């Protein structure tokens, strides 16, 4: 198997799911002949037909709502929000329905849906097409939130999400689609054991960087660059931001005693503040040698111009500088 992009890896995962699960189907805007705005569903229409690759009108509310209804009645829907920004139009079915029905109906139903969407900035798509909204969904009990960062974990996390009995928000950062790497085409797992498990991208003992989604790649760039060459940095990719794998973070911090969190989303009410808060609320408070730090996107809508966009999103040098200031 040659190297493949994250887009192709997701495509392979979807194909495997559809092949092995007759009740699985995909619905969304332009996912058929167009292959999805980012090409993730390319070729699936030809392979599986209109019965299972369902192009919808531009109607995000019913796209998510039909997933809820289908999942309650034996279907296994995977639906796409073309840009995850449009998920604002589907908040009722996701937040008031999917997230709550299992609990609200006393455990008598499950809502195993996956809502995929392209998130993040960096393509000049500006304020309404560049958001990283995963933090919202972490605030909602009943949802799990998954944020792949590369071809392999995108592939695996999608399969694990499919196996999970809960509603999953699956956020694919636009800039990871084109990342190319070797992908082991694993089978569909029996259990969704990967959800809630962080991945240690690189081991180190001087400082722990906790990150997720594309910011993992930016962090990696920073730590392999010459400027940080002399430091021993542990980089943790959360992979799922709800639930969060605190065990892995804590084990790391017991060693490094220093915490830096990096995310693209703005900081208020976010994953990053959650990680820092939970850590300092814990026994780790006494082990941290210096104040933890959060690098995040600015508290600003995304501008369209490239030089302004770069100013809002954390860059390699922001991470470099932060690490240096902490060591």
């Amino acid at each position, binding site marked *: 198997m040659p190297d493949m992009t994250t887009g192709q890896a997701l495509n392979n995962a979807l194909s495997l799911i559809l092949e092995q699960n007759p*009740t699985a*189907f995909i619905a969304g805007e332009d996912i058929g002949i167009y292959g999805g705005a980012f090409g993730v569903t390319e070729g699936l229409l030809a392979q599986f037909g209109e*019965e299972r690759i*369902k192009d*919808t*009108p531009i*109607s995000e*509310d*019913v796209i*998510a*709502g*039909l*997933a*809820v*209804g*289908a*999942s*309650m*009645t*034996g*279907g296994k*829907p995977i639906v796409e929000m073309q840009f995850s920004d449009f998920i604002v139009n589907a908040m*009722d*079915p996701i937040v*008031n*329905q999917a997230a709550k*029905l*299992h*609990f*609200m*109906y*006393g*455990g*008598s*139903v*499950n*809502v*195993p849906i996956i809502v995929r969407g392209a998130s993040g900035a960096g393509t000049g798509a500006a304020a309404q097409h560049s958001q990283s909204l995963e933090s919202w969904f972490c605030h909602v*009990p*009943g949802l*799990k939130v998954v944020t792949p960062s590369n071809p392999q974990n995108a592939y695996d996390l999608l399969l694990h999400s499919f196996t999970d*009995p*809960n509603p999953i928000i699956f956020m694919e950062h636009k800039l990871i689609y084109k990342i190319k790497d070797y992908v082991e085409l694993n089978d569909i797992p029996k259990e969704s054991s990967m959800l809630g498990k962080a991945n240690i991208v690189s081991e180190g003992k001087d400082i722990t960087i906790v990150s997720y989604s594309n910011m993992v790649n930016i962090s990696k760039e920073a730590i392999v660059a010459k400027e940080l060459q002399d430091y021993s940095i542990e980089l943790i990719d959360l992979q799922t931001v709800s639930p969060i794998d605190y065990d892995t973070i804590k084990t790391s911090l017991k060693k490094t005693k220093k915490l830096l969190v990096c995310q693209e989303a703005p900081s208020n009410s976010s994953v990053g503040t959650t990680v820092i808060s939970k850590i300092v609320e814990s026994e780790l408070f006494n082990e941290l040698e210096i104040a933890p730090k959060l690098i995040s996107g600015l508290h600003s809508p995304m501008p369209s111009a490239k030089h302004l966009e770069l100013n809002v999103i954390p860059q390699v040098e922001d991470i470099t500088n932060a690490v240096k200031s902490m060591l």
Partner: protein
Amino acid sequence: MTLSTTTQLELHRMMMLIRLFEEALEEMFSRGLLHGTMHLSIGQEATAAGACLALQKDDLITSTHRGHGHCLAKGAEPYKMFAELLGREDGYCRGRGGSMHIADLSNGNLGANGIVAGSLTISVGAALSFQMQKKDNIILCFFGDGAVNEGSFHEALNLASLWSLPVLFLCENNQYGMSMATDKAVAGDSIASRGNSYGIESIQIDGNDVEGVYENVLNFKNKILSSGGPKFIEAVTYRYRGHSKSDRNLYRTSDEIEYWKEEKDPIKRYIGKLIESGISEDQLKDIDTDIKDLIRKSVKQALDSPLSPITNLEEDSYA
């Protein structure tokens, strides 16, 4: 269509059960036994009873905040419903749902919903399952006149029509969405004509005529199963009680309420019809007694049953 006596008595029995169930709830509420508010469908029983009795057990329904009638008519046990409203372990949702959110999967009730129009897109998804699984079933989606102005109504009807899904949309037009009169809230000709505008065959019927409701639902159900595609019914009815427990009824006259109670009450009208067609008052009285008995026993059983235990609710949030 002439209905068998069994069916007729079943329709009557179900309307009575709904009415007496809700009157019992009112009484429990006034005794301070219930936490939270509730929405009573007293006056609207014919729609729930007529519609659900036209369905098979494995046909599905979705329901609304005003859903006690739908739930009972689809086969739920009063005991488990009372238990639910009282936060008991035996409640349909183990005390987590309450009045507004009862689901009864065992009888094909996918659940009441506290969000106006919240169940429309869900019903579309369930209908898609039926279609994909090639099942000979329909889903009947209840919603109020207030729901037709929500965006999700539009998206749901459009998609159901495009994809020819086996869903019967049933709008209970009780002429008010809370305090808002339907004709101040719905532009265009009528709610049924709005259904038509999506290419969905739609009719307006008397929602207080239980046999009419039954027959029209049965007819549309058969059409859906034979030729595919959704159908739409606007059933005109009326609610006697306030919207919820905090309503002072300032938006309508007591004359209007009285008129509907006196002239149009679905149960009263049907009793008249049954007696005309030869059913004896004694038969009806027996039904009455049975139901009152059932309600009394169910309330008592529910009050005597244990509260839902406080489990780890964070764990209960996930499957």
